[in-house]
């Protein structure tokens, strides 16, 4: 009899574990804090500033979600993850979501059991070399020593690129961007390869950015976006629609400047639904009616976040390109808020 009690207890424990995994939204609310996985430091995307405050384009997604759920964009515990540790951190429940320039791939979505909720940056893999090497194309890199971050799609794309072009290379696997930067600058590798946005961000922090060139070849598609655990669809919806709210805000012309005024109600019903003065969209997600307004208030709409963190006026200087709104020739497109 004792045995059956024991097994019964264990089944309950097992069920409890399953149930806990399924209600991230409640966990976050009762904790009063969002645990958000970010990178260990990539200027413009996620890096602590001089005051130890995390800032950046990926960080902004975390803050928007925290604002939508908890009403406070600062109620975030940022958890730095390396390319290698990020998926374990998410799968184990250590973090509620991951916003760490992570490429949406089939196997990560299907086999690793995650859900990508969207794409906040459309990217591709590039190469950076010191100008003095006089290289003008990635196809001239035969025999080069290449620094790569291990545990990334970069690693696999690189192997494919060199194999299909029938040239050889020596990989130097590295755990974080900071170490890669150090080794690249010390000349222990000839080339640094990662997502083109990452290259731009890394180069911007060099003492002499002009001494390095990014080669023209973009060898892969890297749709980068936030992700959550598979199976908790309610939480997935919260993160997805918070992010889309930022894009929709840019489409609809809602900015941090006019947000307060528009929240009172406008004659555009879609804006009203987005900001919560009309309809019950927030309630459907299990959030306040004005979750969209709060998310936008945390840092601005998608375009503002882009301009502030990585845009052309920042040292990183990325053009909108593929990440412009669809109306301006880009790929950013928010599904209707209704």
């Amino acid at each position, binding site marked *: 009899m004792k045995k059956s009690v024991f097994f019964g207890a264990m089944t309950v424990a097992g069920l409890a574990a399953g149930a806990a995994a399924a209600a991230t939204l409640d966990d976050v609310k009762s904790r009063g804090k969002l645990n958000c996985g970010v990178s260990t430091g990539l200027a413009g995307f996620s890096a602590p500033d001089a005051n130890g405050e995390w800032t950046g384009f990926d960080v902004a997604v975390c803050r928007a979600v925290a604002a939508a759920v908890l009403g406070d964009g600062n109620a975030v515990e940022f958890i730095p993850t390396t390319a290698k540790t990020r998926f374990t951190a998410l799968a184990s429940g250590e973090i509620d979501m991951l916003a760490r320039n992570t490429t949406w791939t089939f196997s990560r979505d299907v086999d690793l059991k995650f859900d990508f909720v969207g794409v906040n940056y459309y990217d591709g893999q590039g190469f950076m070399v010191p100008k003095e090497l006089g290289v003008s194309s990635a196809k001239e890199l035969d025999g080069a020593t290449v620094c790569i971050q291990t545990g990334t799609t970069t690693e696999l794309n690189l*192997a494919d690129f060199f194999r299909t072009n029938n040239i050889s290379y020596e990989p130097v696997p590295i755990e974080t961007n900071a170490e890669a930067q150090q080794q690249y600058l010390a000349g222990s590798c000839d080339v640094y390869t990662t997502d083109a946005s990452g290259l731009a961000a890394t180069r911007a922090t060099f003492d002499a950015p002009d001494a390095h060139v990014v080669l023209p070849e973009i060898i892969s598609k890297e749709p980068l976006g936030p992700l959550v655990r598979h199976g908790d669809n309610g939480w997935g919806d919260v993160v997805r629609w918070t992010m889309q709210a930022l894009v929709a805000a840019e489409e609809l012309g809602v900015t941090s400047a006019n947000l307060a005024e528009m929240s009172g109600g406008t004659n555009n019903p879609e804006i009203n639904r987005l900001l919560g003065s009309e309809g019950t969209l927030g309630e459907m997600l299990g959030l306040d009616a004005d979750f969209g307004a709060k998310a936008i208030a945390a840092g601005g709409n998608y375009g503002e976040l882009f301009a502030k963190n990585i845009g052309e006026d920042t040292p990183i200087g990325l053009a909108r390109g593929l990440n412009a709104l669809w109306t301006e020739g880009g790929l950013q497109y928010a599904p209707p808020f209704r």
Partner: protein
Amino acid sequence: MSTLTDPPKDSFRLSMLINDTRYRSLTFQALAFLALALSFMYLGNNLIANLRAAGLNINFGFLTDTAGYDISQKLVEYSNQDSHSRAAFVGLLNTILVAVLACVTATVFGVIAGVLRLSNNWLVSKLMAFYVEIFRNIPVLIWIIIIFTIMTAVMPAPRAFRGDNATATMVFDAFAFTNRGIYTPLPWFANGIFESQALNWLLVLVVACGSWFAARRVNVWATAKQEATGERPNTLPMLLGIWLAPFLILMLIMGLTWEYPALKGFNFQGGIKIGGPLIALWFALSIYTGAFIAENVRAGIQAVSKGQTEAAAALGLRPSKVMNLVVLPQALRIIIPPLISQYLNITKNSSLAIAVGYADITATLGGITLNQTGRAIECVLLLMAFYLTASLLISLVMNVYNASVKLKER
């Protein structure tokens, strides 16, 4: 009360399990075992339940999938089209390579430092004390990173060797010291007896073994002669002939040539490359563990009673002879058991390799493979099995050696 000489069998009561010293320890052991088994069952069940809740399972099928990534230091053929298990094997060989190299050099460092620490020369003994205290009190990961960082920062990049006003030059036109590693000439056989270079080297090894046996015979003969006549014949020319002649003849026949490294494109090509990560890891592990071994050696030597040294000195042996013939053989018996655990430490600490990008088994199977396939539990189980097997094997070998040097009691 009278004492029971023969307790009646039928009077066993449950309370005796606790109160009776005959049963008490058994009871406690059974309880402890039960608790242990239950907690393991709980953990296992929890794991399975959680995996099921997350929709995951345990499956080793991924090992035959294409790895898709490259490894720079490989002792066997490997390309990114090979399987994950092949990649793990490449990593395994790399682990073994660095562990063996580091065990040898750590022992050398340790013995030298341990003996010198007992030197009568104040400066030498204090220097060695300094070495031991500095190296064993700073974590090995820090040493690995310090050594690697210094290497990459101080040594010139290959591109510094290029051009008319190159800032770096090769040593003797044969060795290149760069921040990516050290390049040395590679000996090979132009007209070897076998097609494969490896077989040719095996032949060299066989010939060397033959010379060794012959040399031993000569020594036995010389000792016998010494015993009989009191005079030891001069064996030096004979030994030299035995060692050198077959070797030189073989090298001439097979046409020994040297392939020199040369700067081609981005890197030095040709010759042997000893990669920077290997050097940093090897050196850091050796110098760190060497400090521990030095202490073991010192303890072993000091444990040999002073009377032994004095007696040996009284017999007229010189201090170096006293050390080699009297003290060290006895000290070995005390040194070897802790030495085993140092060798185990080296093997396990070599898993810090990824800090400098060395592709050991933790970096391949436990790093890239784990990450690309997401099969964390399977990979970690395999890693545990590997390190456990490796450690048990090292223990076994060292214990056999220990048995062979330990005091033979007759």
